[in-house]
């Protein structure tokens, strides 16, 4: 069994989506313990991809390929997890978007992809998202975390707007709020009263894991 988990892990590290899908199919066909296949196999793979990217061994396409490989496998495996197992595996829900007035999309999409590849349930609102839409989405899907991206010094003020609006509605403590994007920093997060700042997709996974995922 350990050998099978290793194969799953390796498929993700290699960014081999076809192999990941084949192994997921095999796990189902041979009645392997699906939750273990996910957690001891595929998830270990994406964790290793993140580590290799952080230490500079991997570059961006390899990170994305790893995320795509695990997402392929999870698309088959997730639906057959029992409700209880899903609860155990899913680390939390995140609503994410690029703030109003800002149409930069790709970095935010990458964060959403990595979060979802790492076991978070992600609701991606896209770009040019108004403050109210973030909060309505958070409420509608019952998320734990609101993540916003801003790529301009002019639009990052909208991240402050999200916090202010949550306070105004008396629901600031209901959500963990994190920020990211080129002009953002830990200092900016502190200044506006956000719970955290992530500089890239991998650190966003680590941050959200710590804040809401029980890591």
């Amino acid at each position, binding site marked *: 069994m350990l050998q099978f988990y290793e194969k799953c892990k390796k498929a993700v590290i290699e960014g081999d989506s076809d192999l990941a899908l084949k192994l997921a199919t095999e796990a189902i066909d041979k009645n392997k313990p699906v939750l273990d296949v996910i957690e001891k196999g595929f998830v270990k793979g994406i964790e290793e991809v993140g580590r290799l990217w952080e230490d500079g061994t991997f570059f961006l*396409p390899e990170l*994305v*390929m790893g995320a795509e490989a695990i997402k392929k496998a999870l698309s088959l495996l997730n639906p057959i997890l029992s409700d209880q197992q899903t609860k155990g595996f899913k680390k939390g829900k995140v609503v994410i978007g690029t703030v109003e007035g800002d149409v930069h999309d790709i970095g935010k999409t990458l964060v959403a992809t990595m979060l979802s590849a790492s076991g978070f349930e992600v609701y991606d609102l896209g770009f040019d998202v108004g403050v109210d839409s973030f909060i309505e989405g958070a409420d509608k899907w019952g998320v734990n975390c609101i993540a916003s991206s801003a790529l*301009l010094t002019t639009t990052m003020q909208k991240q402050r707007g999200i916090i202010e609006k949550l306070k105004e509605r008396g629901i600031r403590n209901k959500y963990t709020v994190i920020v990211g994007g080129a002009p953002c920093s830990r200092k900016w997060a502190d200044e506006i009263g956000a719970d955290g700042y992530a500089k890239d997709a991998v650190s966003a996974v680590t941050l959200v894991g710590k804040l809401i995922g029980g890591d």
Partner: protein
Amino acid sequence: MEPVVLNNIKIEIKEDELLKILGNMGRVESWKGKGIEEKIAEVIELASRLIEPKGIYMIAEGRSLGGTDIFDSLEKMAFSICTIGEKLEKKVGALSREGSILEAVLLDSTGSVAVEETANYIESKIAEIASGEGKKTSPRASPGYGEWKITNQKNLFELLPAGRVGVNLGNSMMMSPQKSISFAIHISETPVRLRGKNFLKKL
């Protein structure tokens, strides 16, 4: 000098530059044999069909600029706004929506390389003109980078009819198409880097 429009600028998208922008500074070897090289070649080919490199530039005496006094201490400046058009970013959006994230990331990064090359081309044109007058040029500076405020983007758009190359400025100072670059260059026998205390006092 009246603004000069340059259409159909010929640029080369260099794979090395794309690899750099993707975080591969030449020391990463693990990627070979995973099909990434082929995907990069495909994306560069796709990008070359989608990009429309063009730009507008003008050279002006610093003191005679209407609508702004930000460069009034500098005797001669060049300003430019360039773009690769909107086709590429529309394709990136479509790829992203259909879940082809790798292709979207690669194409987006290729667009960044292409617009950088477009700016490099215009910069070289300006350097040629300066050289003909026995002058030199500073490196490019863009609003929103370093300490130059992004709100100064307005000044560049007041100076240059960027609509002639299809570039517009939104309320948040974001240019559309996204893959556009606006910049200033100082022309002088002893050009100053457009950053640092002395210059920034004027911004």
